[in-house]
């Protein structure tokens, strides 16, 4: 276990350090997240009294788009400076590289979401102080991070890579979006854990399935 965990954490630390020094990713995704809320507020005519039913949908639309923004950058820095080759040459298993990259994306996304959630709660007028909501956001974001990291490694190599990722990403993560919106609606409405029904298990199954498949497939994607 130690043999897998250490390289994963080193990769996460490397990317966090890069981000800490430039701050371009987190800041731009944060601003983007605020703009998405602004657009949806007018597009859906978020009148007082309706925001309870609209808020979870807007929340997850913003998170999903922000995830694509963040994932698009996941491998760009490595690609541009040849860092990915360095990673691949280093005596680290492909699984560790994948898990490190996915964990980095998860941490970035959770940071952005933690910053956006209170702002959304105020602007969209719902209570974010719910364990169930936080759990839903964590599981949903985990699903985004796992599938997004795999596709990001592919998309970064293709022509028009910024466009390729959403085309690959959205159809596949649609169950996560559906389940997260449903679970969040219940969580915001004050339901208990049982009241969330099968939506959390559905996200859990999605996360588990792709946590098994994606590291295996990732090895084929990055090979030379």
């Amino acid at each position: 276990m130690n043999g897998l965990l250490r390289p994963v954490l080193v990769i996460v630390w490397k990317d966090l350090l890069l981000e800490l020094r430039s701050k371009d990713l987190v800041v731009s995704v944060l601003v983007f997240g605020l703009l998405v809320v602004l657009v949806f507020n007018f597009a859906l005519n978020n009148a007082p009294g309706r925001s309870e039913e609209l808020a979870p949908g807007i929340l997850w639309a913003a998170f999903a788009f922000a995830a694509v923004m963040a994932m698009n950058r996941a491998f760009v820095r490595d690609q541009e400076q040849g860092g990915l080759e360095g990673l691949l040459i280093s005596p680290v298993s492909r699984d560790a590289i994948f898990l490190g990259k996915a964990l980095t994306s998860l941490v970035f996304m959770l940071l952005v979401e933690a910053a956006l959630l209170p702002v959304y709660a105020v602007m969209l007028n719902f209570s974010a102080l719910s364990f169930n909501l936080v759990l839903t956001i964590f599981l949903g974001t985990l699903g985004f991070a796992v599938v997004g990291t795999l596709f990001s490694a592919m998309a970064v190599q293709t022509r028009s890579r910024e466009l390729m990722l959403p085309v690959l990403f959205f159809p596949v993560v649609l169950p996560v979006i559906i389940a997260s919106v449903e679970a969040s609606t219940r969580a915001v409405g004050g339901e208990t854990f049982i009241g969330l029904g099968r939506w959390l298990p559905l996200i859990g199954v999605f996360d588990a399935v792709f946590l098994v498949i994606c590291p295996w497939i990732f090895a084929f994607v990055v090979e030379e």
Partner: protein
Amino acid sequence: MASSQSLTSPSSRMPSAKTVMAAITGVMMVINLYLIFMVAPTDSVLGHVQRVFYFHVPIAIMSFLAFFVVFAGSVMYLITRSPKWDAVAHAAAEVGVVLVTLALITGIIWARPVWNTWWTWEPRLTTTLILWLIYVAYLMVRSYAPTQSKGAIYAAVMGIVGFVDVPIVYYSVVWWRSIHPSPVVGPFAQADALDGTMALVLLYSFITFVFFFVYMVMERMSLRSMEEALGRIRFTLRRSGR
């Protein structure tokens, strides 16, 4: 540089398997059309529009089969790295996208008189639409990849991830629908009312579309081997300074 693969195999006088398949499919399709439009009884409630059903159901089933072939071909390609498997998956994906498109279009034509709406977010429709999007992404990532071999791998990745995802998509939209019940009737609501002749015509149509699918995949695979041969010729010409 040994181009052992013959382009059109002009030396052999025997018709190729593909030609035989084309002939069988053609004859079967003509009979199929005759059965659908002349033999099958007109539906007492829906009228002639119901005949689209004999196309819609076999095409929809074949499109799911196509994506199983894509999945199997993708897994085998990643394991064995034999381009043969990639060619199978690629051909099945292209034919599959055409079939799903046809299934969606015939479904829309059928839905209008039956459900009084062109489209409804019913689980089966929604899943089919997402399936279409996944396999369009499969074809896109293949052609946008930096090299052909990378494209084959990326496409195989999408073929596997997409196929594994389909059941999860299906259950999520089923549950989503059961919580917001829709006013429309299920797609097979009147399937019990299928009389004997109708069922036989449907069965024949299904078999026809199995042949149609196999023939199209063969045709696409031979097209691909021609593309590859052409690529080799171009490469040789360019290297010789033309």
